[in-house]
């Protein structure tokens, strides 16, 4: 096991049907037309020395090191900027070229510190490599002239430093920020010898527009931009390819290690979702794995008011089994249940739902997707036949129109956002439907053609109005509809949307969006070429969440934007394994592969595999479990990797439900907020400590590889297995690959999946005999359900309405640097960017209430109140306020209500009627909660014997 050295071809690959054959150093080489001479040489195994070129970036031609000779051409062209030509004869090494390259290197080195042995990039420096390649033996100019050796180092960023004295001004960092990340935070300031890299307006990296994605660090050929972890620990000695545990993009990284210590996470160029790019979370925010807050021993307590007592794994597991069996004996088999985690692996999730169905004998299993994408499951299954995004991420490169609805990709799914922005810079058109002016609406070199700033809760009104335009203006793709969709359903739907009451003009009073903008957006979506929809929780977390998903599917079918690259319906999944946790049968009504528990033929598969009869009735969903707990019929809960006290709505209802239970088992990395109400704490393992798979938003099954031993001694799947065995239902897996083998045996869409295959080939489900290499694009020849199903989407107003007491509408979301409840990211240096949740409020609303930027305010709803500080901004419309839910002491969900989606009970986080008023300090609830939280986290000190 060594360090994975990825080949740098110098310039990006070119996609072309035409191929060109040339000769390089006497050898014939055939490459796609448009390929650079540098890349062609590298593909033939000939490395041309280079400094400003790297294959993540377009060629630049500034360093003059990659010069070559080409027969019949004058001079020595740069191989990075010279495209191949048929019959071209290239020589990469001649006396003339050698001399030129040495001369160039001498100039570079004359202004570069000669501290290689103590340099943090020693052993991983392209300048050092190039000096060796060109045979540099002297610097004739000496070192006494003007130089930049005293240039200061910027260490403001918590994760990397900018050591300006080592900069060779190759512009790779600037170009990476522009071309790869699309932020344009860096520039070359000054001219000639005074040229230097500058962040923002020549300010520290930390305060500039830099988003710390790490693209510049990765692109830097020297030690100028380098991870502080490398400076501190030295160069890594081996690497393991694994998958990020943040967000649903599913970036692949090389975990670069020294022993069992992570030195850095480097995005893997062969990663099919990220193609070598990353964001601040995946690239840098992994330090939580070794944070001192990690709990590494199982703990028990009789009552939640007691301090915790550390116990052995055996005692803890035995206690859980005894308690759950007792509760079932006393209150019925339905008295206990589980919550699986979208942060855990598929194998772990599969085992937890198996524990409920086979060991508990009920279907009381649910997952955090309940509170995010469960309406996607209902909506896409009803219209298309299965719950899945239709495209791969590469598809966006062929989109001509992109409609982003209720999602904020630059914060929530930043690596996909970078790919999207690249496509938009190439000319694709953008429609944004969101109450907030998210960054995508106007960002460097990107401007939305339409931003529809709708009133929260009016998604269905806007989308149905768009459908009205498409139908009444004759923009339906009739051939597609005729061939691919149910005719009667389409006819009914078309008649419905064509009604005048669904016109943009009629809906304007509901949505607040000017009719002309809705008409323009609809026309663009229907006629602009390949049109793709990407959506997030701003679609699903509403009382009409499922209806909105179906309205989206209707639009895609009506315009024929489904079943080929560049189009489709793409739910952007919030957490890393939301797709997988749903696929694995976490929902109480569905076995793995989205097959209803009432289907006897499906139950028979699992009854044969597991050897026990299965319950044909659906179980309780998370909100139902809490309701049932309050009413005494639900007494015990095993929660793996979730923090429902902080993440679920109407906190006081959640805590009342948990407090009413007799045995709450929290299996997590940290004593999270839910653990305050737990009787058993089982220490969890991070993604670095276990093997398994995650499935990202494009249905890609990514391998997660263990790089260090579980710090608490057991991986999460081993803990679930131990509970099951103690309960009397035998599980005897010795490796997660065996769990995947069972999934493949029992789930047709995974029939062709195994760890061995995943190590060879990236696969997107369905993967089976019909699609042996997986399915990048779904519904190409026909919908999973056969014919596409149009569903009537009548706008029905939510019952959560603003009024005199609560005149504003609160909507919630996340921010780039933090993730979900913040359990991981709050335990990293990411807190420098977001140390607290803030309430965004429009200047007009702020002025009316006497609130200034930075003031403490009281945020109150019918459900509860909290306090936090205000950020006065025009990003939100008048009448709308916004906050994040990353910090437990803000606890935004104290304010959100228990209104939910009609079909799935997905909470209506995005619409809460609130009032905002100045405040002097924490609310009574916050004071109480802080005291209770501190008391609940006490761990009993055992006197030394």
């Amino acid at each position: 096991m060594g360090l994975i050295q990825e080949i740098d071809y110098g310039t990006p690959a070119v996609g072309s049907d035409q191929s060109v054959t040339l000769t390089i150093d006497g050898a014939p080489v055939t490459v796609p037309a448009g390929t650079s001479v540098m890349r062609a040489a590298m593909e033939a195994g000939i490395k041309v020395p280079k400094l400003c070129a790297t294959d993540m970036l377009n060629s630049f031609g500034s360093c003059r090191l990659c010069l070559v000779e080409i027969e019949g051409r004058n001079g020595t062209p740069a191989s990075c900027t010279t495209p191949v030509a048929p019959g071209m004869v290239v020589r990469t090494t001649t006396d003339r070229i050698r001399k030129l390259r040495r001369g160039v290197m001498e100039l570079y080195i004359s202004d570069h510190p000669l501290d290689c042995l103590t340099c943090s990039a020693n052993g991983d420096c392209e300048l050092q490599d190039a000096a060796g390649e060109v045979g540099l033996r002297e610097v004739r100019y000496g070192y006494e002239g003007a130089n930049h050796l005293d240039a200061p180092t910027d260490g403001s960023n918590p994760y990397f430093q900018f050591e300006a004295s080592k900069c060779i001004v190759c512009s790779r960092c600037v170009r990476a920020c522009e071309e790869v990340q699309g932020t344009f935070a860096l520039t070359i300031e000054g001219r000639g010898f005074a040229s230097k890299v500058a962040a923002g307006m020549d300010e520290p990296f930390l305060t500039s527009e830099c988003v710390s994605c790490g693209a510049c660090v990765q692109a830097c050929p020297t030690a100028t931009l380098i991870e502080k972890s490398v400076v501190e620990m030295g160069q890594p000695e081996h690497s393991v390819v694994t998958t990020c545990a943040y967000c649903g993009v599913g970036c692949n990284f090389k975990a670069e290690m020294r022993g069992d210590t992570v030195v850095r996470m480097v995005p893997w160029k062969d990663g099919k979702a990220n193609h070598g790019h990353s964001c601040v979370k995946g690239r840098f925010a992994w330090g939580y794995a070794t944070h001192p807050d990690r709990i590494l021993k199982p703990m028990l307590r009789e009552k939640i008011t007691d301090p915790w007592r550390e116990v052995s794994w055996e005692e803890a597991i035995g206690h859980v089994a005894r308690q759950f069996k007792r509760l079932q004996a006393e209150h019925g088999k339905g008295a206990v249940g589980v919550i699986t985690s979208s942060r855990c692996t598929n194998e772990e999730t599969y085992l937890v739902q198996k524990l409920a169905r086979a060991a508990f004998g009920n279907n009381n299993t649910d997952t955090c997707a309940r509170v995010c994408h469960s309406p996607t499951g209902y909506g896409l299954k009803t219209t298309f036949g299965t719950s899945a995004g239709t495209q791969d991420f590469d598809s966006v490169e062929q989109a001509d129109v992109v409609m982003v609805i209720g999602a904020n990709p630059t914060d929530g799914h930043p690596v996909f956002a970078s790919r999207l922005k690249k496509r938009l810079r190439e000319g694709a058109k953008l429609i944004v439907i969101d109450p907030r002016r998210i960054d995508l609406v106007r960002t460097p070199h990107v401007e939305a053609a339409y931003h529809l700033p709708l009133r929260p809760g009016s998604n269905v009104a806007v989308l149905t109005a768009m459908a009205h335009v498409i139908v009444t203006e004759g923009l339906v793709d009739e051939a597609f509809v005729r061939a691919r969709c149910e005719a009667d359903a389409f006819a009914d739907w078309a008649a419905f949307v064509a009604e005048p009451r669904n016109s943009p003009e009629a809906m304007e009073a509901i949505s607040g969006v000017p009719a002309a903008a809705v008409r323009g957006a609809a026309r663009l979506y229907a006629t602009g070429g390949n049109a793709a929809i990407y959506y997030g929780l701003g679609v699903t977390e509403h009382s009409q969440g499922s209806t909105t998903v179906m309205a989206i599917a209707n639009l895609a079918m009506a315009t024929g934007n489904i079943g080929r690259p560049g189009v489709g319906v793409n739910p952007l999944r919030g957490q890393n394994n939301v797709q997988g946790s749903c696929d694995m049968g976490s929902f109480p009504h569905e076995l793995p592969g989205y097959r209803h528990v009432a289907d006897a033929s499906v139950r028979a598969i699992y009854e044969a595999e597991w050897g026990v009869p299965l319950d044909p009735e659906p179980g309780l969903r998370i909100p139902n479990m809490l309701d049932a707990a309050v009413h005494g019929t639900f007494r015990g809960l095993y929660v793996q990797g979730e923090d429902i006290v902080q993440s679920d709505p109407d906190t006081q209802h959640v805590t009342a439900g948990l407090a009413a239970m007799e045995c709450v088992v929290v299996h997590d990395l940290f004593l999270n907020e839910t653990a305050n109400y737990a009787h058993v704490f089982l220490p969890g393992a991070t993604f670095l400590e276990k093997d398994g798979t995650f499935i990202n938003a494009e249905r890609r099954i990514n391998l997660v590889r263990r790089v260090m031993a579980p710090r608490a001694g057991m991986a999460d799947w081993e803990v679930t297995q131990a509970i099951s065995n103690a309960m009397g239902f035998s599980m005897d897996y010795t490796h997660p690959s065996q769990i995947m083998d069972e999934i493949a045996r029992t789930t047709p869409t995974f029939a062709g999946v195994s760890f061995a295959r995943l190590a060879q080939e990236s696969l997107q489900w369905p993967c089976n005999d019909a699609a042996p290499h997986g399915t990048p694009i779904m519904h190409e020849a026909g919908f999973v359900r056969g014919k596409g199903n149009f569903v009537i989407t009548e706008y029905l107003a939510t019952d959560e309405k603003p009024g005199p007491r609560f005149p504003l509408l609160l909507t919630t979301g996340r921010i780039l640097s933090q993730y979900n409840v913040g359990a991981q990211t709050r335990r990293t240096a990411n807190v420098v960017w977001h140390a607290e949740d803030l309430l965004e409020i429009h200047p007009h609303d702020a002025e009316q209430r006497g609130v200034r930027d930075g003031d403490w305010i009281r945020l109150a709803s019918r459900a509860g109140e909290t306090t936090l500080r205000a950020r006065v901004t025009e990003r939100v419309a008048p009448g709308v306020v916004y906050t994040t839910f990353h910090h437990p002491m803000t606890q935004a969900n104290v304010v959100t209500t228990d209104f939910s989606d009609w079909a799935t009970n997905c909470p209506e986080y995005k619409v809460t009627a609130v009032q905002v008023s100045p405040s002097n300090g924490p609310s009574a609830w916050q004071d109480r909660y802080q005291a209770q939280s501190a008391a609940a986290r006490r761990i009993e000190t055992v006197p030394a014997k």
Partner: protein
Amino acid sequence: MSPEKLAYMANQIGRFFATQTRADVVDGIADHLVKFWDPRMRATLLAHLDDPAITLDPPVRAAAQRLRAAPPA
């Protein structure tokens, strides 16, 4: 579980199916309750059908009465 809350949820379901022109509204509501509700939720709702404090829209009440008369096998 609170019968009032269950009634509210059932009415939400009913209002969706009431807009669907191609399927029988009562069938749609009953099917949804069977497919997605834990039996104890259904039982609680059905047990309170005659409670005057429980307000159900007519098609929802019809669906619930049908389930009470002929529980799913």
